[in-house]
């Protein structure tokens, strides 16, 4: 399966390491937190110290414990929403691209409508009608986020399916008389993998952003810790004006790091899909580094594989 091997660029390696770290944190976070994140056990507004690495909140809760505890909710919602949205986008995008005709028109229209609807405001409207108990359920909230985030993936997948549909190998299996679902699942789907992976990463990134934004607005259950909730409480208690950077900077950095790792992995996929990008990256290590600032036009060594698209 050489086709699936991502380029081993430093970007991809860094992305894998950072994402791996947070995935581990998602699993073990609540077990290794030093204190109960919700109990006001300590003096209020303590600065960072060896007992409280990130200080304490206005109520005397340990910020570091909240950070560890919040990893799980944040990551789980991001992953659930990303997966649900990706499944939706496969169903809509691949069927639209492959079946064509009226089905395509309808499904494309639906994804264009959802693409044009501003996601976060819609999310806020839906979420504020939800009963408070449901707002902390990762599957409910992940599902709602997925509803606003599937359209982009569907559009990209449709375009790719459309271009695959008329390739010879698909034509061949149609002539042999393979069933439609089999052609879609066995012939077309594997060739969509890079785009699918990229759209999954993108959706997880969007979902984590959307979830933390909702939490920052106080629209998730504020008693369940996630990184957005932490920033909500920090903002509500004017941590900003009191210079309590240790309260709201760490959760923000965590969100940004997870997002960066997903984007870095996406670069790897981009370079895989579009060899010109890869060639540009590989060149740096070549002997002609001294003239690297000058563009070398039209000489990008590209081996055109049949599966490669522009």
């Amino acid at each position: 399966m050489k086709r699936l091997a991502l380029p081993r660029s430093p970007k991809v390696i860094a992305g894998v390491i950072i994402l791996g770290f947070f995935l581990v944190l998602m699993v073990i976070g609540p077990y290794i937190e030093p204190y109960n994140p919700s109990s006001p056990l300590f003096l209020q507004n303590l600065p960072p110290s060896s007992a409280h690495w990130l200080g304490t909140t206005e109520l005397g809760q340990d910020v570091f414990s909240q950070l560890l505890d919040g990893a799980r909710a944040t990551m789980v919602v991001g992953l659930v929403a990303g997966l649900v949205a990706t499944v939706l986008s496969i169903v809509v995008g691949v069927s639209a691209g492959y079946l064509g005709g009226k089905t395509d028109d309808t499904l494309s229209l639906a994804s264009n409508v959802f693409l044009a609807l501003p996601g976060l405001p819609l999310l806020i409207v839906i979420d504020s009608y939800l009963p408070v108990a449901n707002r902390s359920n990762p599957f409910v909230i992940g599902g709602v986020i997925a509803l606003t985030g599937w359209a982009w993936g569907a559009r990209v997948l449709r375009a790719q399916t459309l271009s695959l549909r008329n390739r010879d190998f698909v034509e061949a299996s149609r002539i042999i008389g393979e069933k439609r679902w089999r052609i879609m699942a066995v012939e077309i789907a594997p060739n969509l993998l890079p785009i699918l992976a990229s759209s999954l990463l993108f959706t997880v990134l969007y979902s984590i952003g959307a979830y933390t934004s909702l939490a920052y607005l106080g629209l998730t259950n504020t008693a369940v810790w996630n990184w957005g909730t932490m920033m909500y409480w920090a903002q509500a208690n004017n941590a900003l004006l009191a210079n309590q950077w240790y309260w709201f900077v760490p959760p923000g950095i965590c969100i940004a790091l997870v997002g960066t790792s997903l984007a870095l992995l996406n670069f790897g996929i981009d370079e895989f899909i579009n060899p010109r990008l890869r060639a540009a990256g590989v060149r740096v290590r070549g002997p002609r580094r001294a003239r690297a600032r000058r563009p070398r036009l039209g000489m990008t060594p590209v081996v055109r594989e049949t599966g490669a698209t522009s």
Partner: protein
Amino acid sequence: MRVLLRRFGVYLLTAWVAITANFFLPRLMPGNPIASLIGKLTGQVTPQEVRSIQLQFGVGLHSSIWQQYWTYWVNLFHGQLGTSITLSASVSSVLSSQIYWTLGLIGVATVLSFALGTALGAILGWTRGSRTDSLIPIATFFQATPYFFLGSVMVLVFANNLHWFPDLGAYDPNATPGWNWGFIASLFRYAQLPVISILLSSMAGWMLGMRNMMVTVIGEDFVLMAVAKGLPRRRVIWHAARNAVLPSVANFALAIGLLVSGALLVELVFNYPGVGNLLLNATLNEDYPLLQGIFLVITLTVLGANLIADVLYYWLDPRTRTPVAQ
């Protein structure tokens, strides 16, 4: 022209979906949010106000849901979006007094971020494989950072500690609002930090997209031709960039939604007046009429911006004027 009309049709449909969602969501949601809201409000507000909420959300009415839907549309065409529960004023008047702040802030930030991001992306694409590539991970980090977080950090560093910028609000409280120099100067001074923080995180997306497209376009024969003709480098870059920018314009729909969503939260950080702050109030107080009005206005504005981008695309790329099957 047909292409543009089709896009316009999609936006009309989107507006219809948004309006219809506004109507049906509170009625179909599990847990009956409106009834519980009315329960909470009883005794706090006048019976007339409770009655107007009941009318708007169809609680305890004898008319069918389709009749209510029709009335909803009629009211909408008369600009009646209901009455805000917390502000005791009509939603349309609240919105029309606040939307200029948001339009100004986000409009300026959007245009600047697109222009700067695209220009930087073109340069990055041209000098690919050189030291400028080290900007990519940095841009990626900014892209992944929630706008509101970046805004908070900027307030902390540049306003609270370095005192380069004023920290919160939209203008100097000592200035008298109006067309006088002092007020306009303070508007400008107070808008700088919010605009910069939206710019920093939204620019990265345009930049990375443009860079990748530029790298792809540079491999095309027409760029080689331009170099072979001996055109000055600046003109070659311009030549390539004009072609590379098209996908960015075409993807405006996706980007503008994300940008507006992010920028609304930046308003909260800076305590900037506008729709973002209204939104926070509406959600915290379960002010559903205001919430619906805000959602509607944001959606229509985003659709309008999309339409402008589509017209621009149509004008930039002659190929779109002859519709072909994709």
